[in-house]
């Protein structure tokens, strides 16, 4: 119980009676605060200020500014002259994004962004937060801390990748401005999702499951080639996840989001890019391109499995630089002009989704090669090229195996396969003003749960899901029954 009258005034007497720490009192508090670019206030009804829950205000600013709002009417939280423009401009330049590219992406005029960067005109915290999110920095500390806890390493990694791809110094997928902005936004989602997930895991009294997988920096040699290393890693991973050797994986999305529990973000990238594994402020996540070949969910599963290998086994590399994969890196093919790290992930993905022994049994149970291939595609939900590759390599001498002249085989997934992976197609209507795909999925669930648990205000939830009040209500109406929340 917290009996200090000042704290009771800040968080409410009832919350303080039930709490054993200020953190707990903040969480239980029905109180709200308001912030502007530079000051914090107690919420007293209708307002145009940016609404924060007591927990958000406490987490961001500590107890003293909250107490000061009571005694002085407001508290200064402003971080320094020139903010937030200085931080936003530096970050944009670090990411090598022009003001025109950023303006077009967020549907604002270049003049508006220029004014924010130069500190001209009226301050606009909500727009500053929106830009911060797009640039992958922590919107909670915009105008409060210089730099707003942006990860300089992430920006440098993206910039380096772009340069490598342009100069051809490394085999890299090219990045356009929109892809850069999608990836930097993904970095923000990774950080925010992990933060909310950690908060909510504590609520449930459970920690995120730990997967004791042997991290290896071995990419094969002539005695133990890369694909053999990948096969062993895939076998090990299935075992760690309690997936039987012949068992198909029904939903990669579900496996990643709910079992392994890492951020899996679907967004629009340059159409040759399949996916990326990124690290921001030491936290890892996977980005999957919605565009291009991933629009076929069988290819998308290969992409996710490929990125899973990077996520689990290449994390020391990812912490130093971002990994962005073109479809050429992902789909099985005879192309050997790829990096070692990609060769291993490519073999891992195929073996993880469709272990060769299981594939061989399924293939041989059918009467014709066409039927066998299609059956392998159906059972393991893999693409045609992956199925053919795994069938071929399930035989002792793959080089001597050949397919007969094959008839036409559909490359399209079944409706069940689509429902298991491309969940947003059926789960959400494609309304205008609906949250973008990057903010849906597990992220959306966590945001709604966090708001339900008073960790964030309803306004913060709307900002996180990039939607207005009306849409947010409709999103909640769909999500709440699906995730079994009550009391909303």
């Amino acid at each position: 119980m917290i009996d200090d009258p000042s704290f009771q005034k800040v968080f409410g007497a009832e919350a303080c009676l039930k709490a054993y720490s200020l953190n707990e009192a903040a969480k239980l508090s029905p109180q709200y605060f308001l912030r502007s670019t530079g000051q914090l206030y107690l919420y007293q009804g209708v307002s145009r200020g940016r609404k924060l829950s007591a927990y958000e205000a406490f987490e961001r600013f500590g107890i003293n500014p909250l107490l000061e709002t009571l005694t002085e009417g407001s508290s200064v939280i402003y971080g320094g002259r020139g903010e937030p423009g200085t931080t936003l401009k530096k970050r944009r330049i670090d990411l090598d994004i022009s003001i025109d590219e950023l303006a077009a992406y967020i549907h604002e005029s270049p003049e508006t962004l220029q004014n924010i960067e130069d500190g001209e005109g009226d301050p606009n915290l909500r727009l500053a937060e929106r830009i911060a999110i797009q640039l992958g920095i922590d919107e909670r500390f915009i105008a409060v801390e210089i730099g707003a806890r942006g990860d300089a390493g992430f920006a440098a990694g993206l910039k380096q990748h772009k340069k490598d791809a342009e100069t051809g110094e490394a085999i890299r997928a090219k990045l356009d401005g929109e892809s850069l902005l999608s990836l930097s936004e993904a970095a923000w989602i990774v950080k925010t999702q992990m933060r909310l997930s950690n908060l909510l895991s504590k609520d449930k009294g459970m920690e995120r499951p730990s997967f004791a997988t042997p991290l290896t920096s071995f990419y094969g040699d002539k005695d133990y080639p890369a694909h053999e290393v990948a096969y062993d890693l895939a076998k090990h991973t299935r075992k760690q996840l309690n997936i039987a050797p012949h068992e198909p994986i029904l939903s990669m999305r579900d496996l990643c989001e709910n079992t392994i529990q890492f951020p899996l973000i679907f967004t629009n990238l340059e159409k040759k890019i399949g996916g990326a594994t990124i690290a921001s402020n030491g936290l890892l996540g996977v980005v999957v391109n919605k565009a291009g070949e991933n629009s076929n969910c069988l290819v998308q599963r290969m992409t996710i499995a490929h990125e899973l290998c990077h996520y689990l086994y290449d994390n020391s590399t990812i912490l130093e630089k971002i990994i962005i994969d073109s479809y050429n890196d992902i789909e099985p093919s005879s192309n050997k002009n790829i990096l070692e790290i990609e060769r291993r992930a490519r073999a891992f993905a195929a073996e993880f989704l469709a272990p060769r022994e299981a594939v061989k049994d399924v293939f041989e149970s059918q009467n014709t090669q066409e039927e066998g291939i299609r059956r392998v595609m159906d059972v393991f939900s893999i693409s045609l090229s992956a199925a053919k590759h795994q069938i071929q390599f399930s035989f002792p001498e793959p080089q001597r195996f050949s397919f007969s002249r094959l008839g036409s085989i559909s490359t399209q997934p079944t409706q069940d396969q689509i429902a298991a992976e491309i969940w947003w197609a059926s789960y959400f209507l494609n309304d205008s003003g609906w949250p973008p795909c990057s903010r849906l999925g597990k992220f959306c669930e966590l945001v709604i749960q966090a708001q339900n648990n008073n960790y964030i205000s309803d306004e913060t939830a709307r900002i996180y899901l990039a939607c207005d009040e009306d849409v947010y209500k409709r999103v909640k109406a769909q999500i709440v029954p699906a995730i079994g929340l009550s009391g909303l």
Partner: protein
Amino acid sequence: MSFVGYRIDFSMQPRAIKGDIEHDKPLATGIIDLEKPPLENVALGTPPQDRHKPGDNTYIWAILPSSIPSIKEKCAATQHLPDNVAKHTNLTGGCDAYCGGELWFQNEKEFIFSGASGRYPPRSLEELEHIASSLRALGYKVAHLGWDIEADNIQGKAKRYQDKELICI
């Protein structure tokens, strides 16, 4: 004479926040009256820049029916008060006042002020501007910290930090 118009246009307000009882007692020493220039022996100060750089040599002020008392927030006369700091109610005795705030002298005729008072806050930017004009009419050169247009209610709130260079006029 210069505050006559202001006192007609704006009403007195009760204190918005009730604090420690010691802060309701008027102070006997250390007070200067801004309405009676010239001032002497003021401590020169700087307004707060941001949360890391609080103001230096801050004075508080309040507009009463016939005077504008001001006192250095922390001085010999405030030693006995909680946290050794004077509040606006130490200038008003806890009674109603028109408005209150803080100020920082650049010299004896020039100062930057704000409407930062939890007890008697200015109710609009217009009120703050009116006070500035009235002070100029008394012969001071002044500038104020401005208005937080993103804040609280429809009227907003006075700013308590300086994010741009200010020139007293």
